[in-house]
Structures are given as C-alpha cells and as structure tokens.
C-alpha cells in the first residue's frame, strides 16, 4: 500500500524478485565491447542495434534545447563547438565518440554533449 499523498512512501516491499509486475519494464541485453579493437569500431554492434533509440533520445534533448532557444542557435552552437572538444579528451574517449557518431548518424557535437551531460547538467 502507498500513502496517497507525497512522497507516496510505501511500506517496504517484499518478494519483488525475480522482477515482475508493473514496476518491471524489461530485461537488459548483454553486449561485448572488445577493447582490442580500434576505439572507433568497438561500439559498432551496440549502436547499430540501438540507433533508433539513440536518435530518438538525442532528438528529445534537441527539442528541449529548442524550447529554451527557439531560434535553434543553441543546437547549432553544440554542433559547431563540441566536435572540437572531442579532440581534447583523453584517449580513447574522443575516438570512441567519433565512431558512435559515424555509426548512428548523430552529429558528433550531440554525441559529445550526451557524454559530458553530467558536468553540463550541474549548471
């Protein structure tokens, strides 16, 4: 039972495992990342599988940016400036992001933004 006023604190749940029911949305697929392969190639299999979902998520962030700056300048700024930043990252991260951009078709600047979102989000 959950209290019907915020913060909707529940009694401690029990027997939720193995995961099932309305709080379980699905299992998670396994992939291998081969660290012996070139950085720009090691994410290819995963991104090929998840390309549509990645493009959808990036589009949602783009929509959010355009909601703040309707002129689209903010997204333009990301697409122009952040690719430069990719070359400043320690190896192998910049190369891996370039490989992800190439396979997914997402602009490199937006892949970089996704990967530095933790630091950006503290703003």
């Amino acid at each position, binding site marked *: 039972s959950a209290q019907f006023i915020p913060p909707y604190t529940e*009694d*401690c*749940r*029990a027997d939720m495992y193995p995961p099932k029911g309305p709080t379980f949305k699905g299992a998670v697929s396994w992939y291998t990342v081969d660290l012996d392969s070139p950085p720009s190639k090691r994410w290819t299999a995963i991104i090929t599988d998840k390309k549509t979902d990645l493009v959808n*998520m990036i589009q949602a962030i783009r929509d959010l940016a355009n909601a703040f700056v309707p002129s689209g300048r903010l997204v333009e700024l990301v697409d122009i400036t952040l690719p430069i930043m990719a070359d400043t990252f320690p190896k192998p991260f910049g190369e891996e992001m370039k490989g992800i951009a190439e396979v997914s078709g997402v602009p490199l600047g937006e892949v970089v933004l996704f990967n*530095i979102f933790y*630091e950006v989000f*503290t703003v």
Partner: protein
Amino acid sequence: CTSVVAEDKNGNLIHGRNLDFGLFMGWDMKNKSWIISEKLKPLVVNLDFKRNNQTVFKSTNFAGYVGMLTGIKPHLFTLTMNERFSLDGGYIGILEWILGKRDGMWMSFLTRSVLEKANSYEEAKTLLAQTKLLAPAYFILGGNQTGQGCIITRSRLLSIDILEIDVKLGRWYVLETNYDHWKEPLFLDDRRTPAMKCMNQTTQTNITLKTMYDVLSTKPVLNKLTTYTTLMQVSEGSLESYIRNCPNPCMPW
C-alpha cells in the same frame, strides 16, 4: 539515484543501485512521466568489456555513453556514482577545460579508467578520492573483503569525506542518494530515510540480492526518474540489471 553497499553475515558484499535521471527535462502530462527518462530506458545495456577475450570489467550503460556510472571488476570491486550538486559545479570545470586548463578528469572517464586499470578496492579508492575532477560527485565503492564498502564524497578538487562500512559499529551497509551523508536531505526529496528504514527492516541476516531489490523497489526510492536497477555481487562476479517503471501514485523524483 540511490546506491547501497551492504555486507551480509558471511562477509559477502552486495552492491545495488537505482539510476535516476532526467529531472526538469520535460514532463509528459499525458503519461505522467519524464520525457528524457523514458527515452533513456530503451538505451540501457549491459556491457562485458573484454581484452584478449578475457573479461576486464562489466557495466550497465546507456548506449552511446562511453563513460561508466555502474560497473563491476569481477571478484575485485564494484563501483557506482551518484550526482552531487554544488555551486562549485561542473560548469566551472568545463570553462577551465575550454580555457585550456585540463588537469581535471571528466567524471565518467575516471570511473571507466578505474574499472579498466585498478586491480584492488584500495587502489580504486585512492584513484577515486585523489583524482582532480571537473564536477563534484559521490562514488560508492564495494570491495571483496569484510568492511570494504564506502561512500567517497568528492568536490572538484578534494575528497571531502569517506564513510566506510564498520560492522563492529553496527554499520553493515552504506547508502547514498544525492546529499552529503552528514547533512539532512532536502525534505522534498528524502529517499534516504525510507531506504534506510527498509534496509534496517531487512537486517544484515537477511540481506541478499533479492532483498536489496525489494528495497530499491520501494517508493520513493523507486520513482518516476528511475530508469534501471542494477544488482552486483563481487564474490560471484555477477551484474544484473532491470529496466524500471513506477506506477501511479509515484513521486516525480
């Protein structure tokens, strides 16, 4: 986010976490959900990083994100990170980086480097505590021996505090949400109290991956921002993840 490292009666370390993300980034009125959180869920993947066909470490990631937020170095240590808010935040680190001052590490690149290169709990703890960062963070680290579980509270430059498991003091688990453990959490976002209530109710005798999952399934520890739950057991070298939903009524965060 909520991360917990617990030691059972046999000295096994169990590490669980809810990854909550997408706050204030667009609310879907119709579905009563956060837009970005829902877009991230299909991107959740488990990764097995291999070299010479041997597992180096395993992680739960969002596809397209090359850093690490949740990972295990099988039989050695487990690592998760939670967001820490501070005025001396990431935007300062980014500005320094852009201006050419690049002696700090991007948080998720550090966690990946630690999972890839560190070969013990102590080595990982030293790297996480002492490496200069671009943004503040909480690192939650579990080892493979009794007493090896800690919360490292980091500012950009310093390790502010390390809280360790100490079974003799009755502290058989350490739990971190997104607030310094020596301060009260924001009253509007107190996930710590219900989580600790459920951990204490579980007791050290009964803590297992299953009962850890129960704690991480209890509202508001489970909330509308929760994208996935990961359970890790270092002695088994096991990592398992589940994509989550929070049926109404449910806290937005």
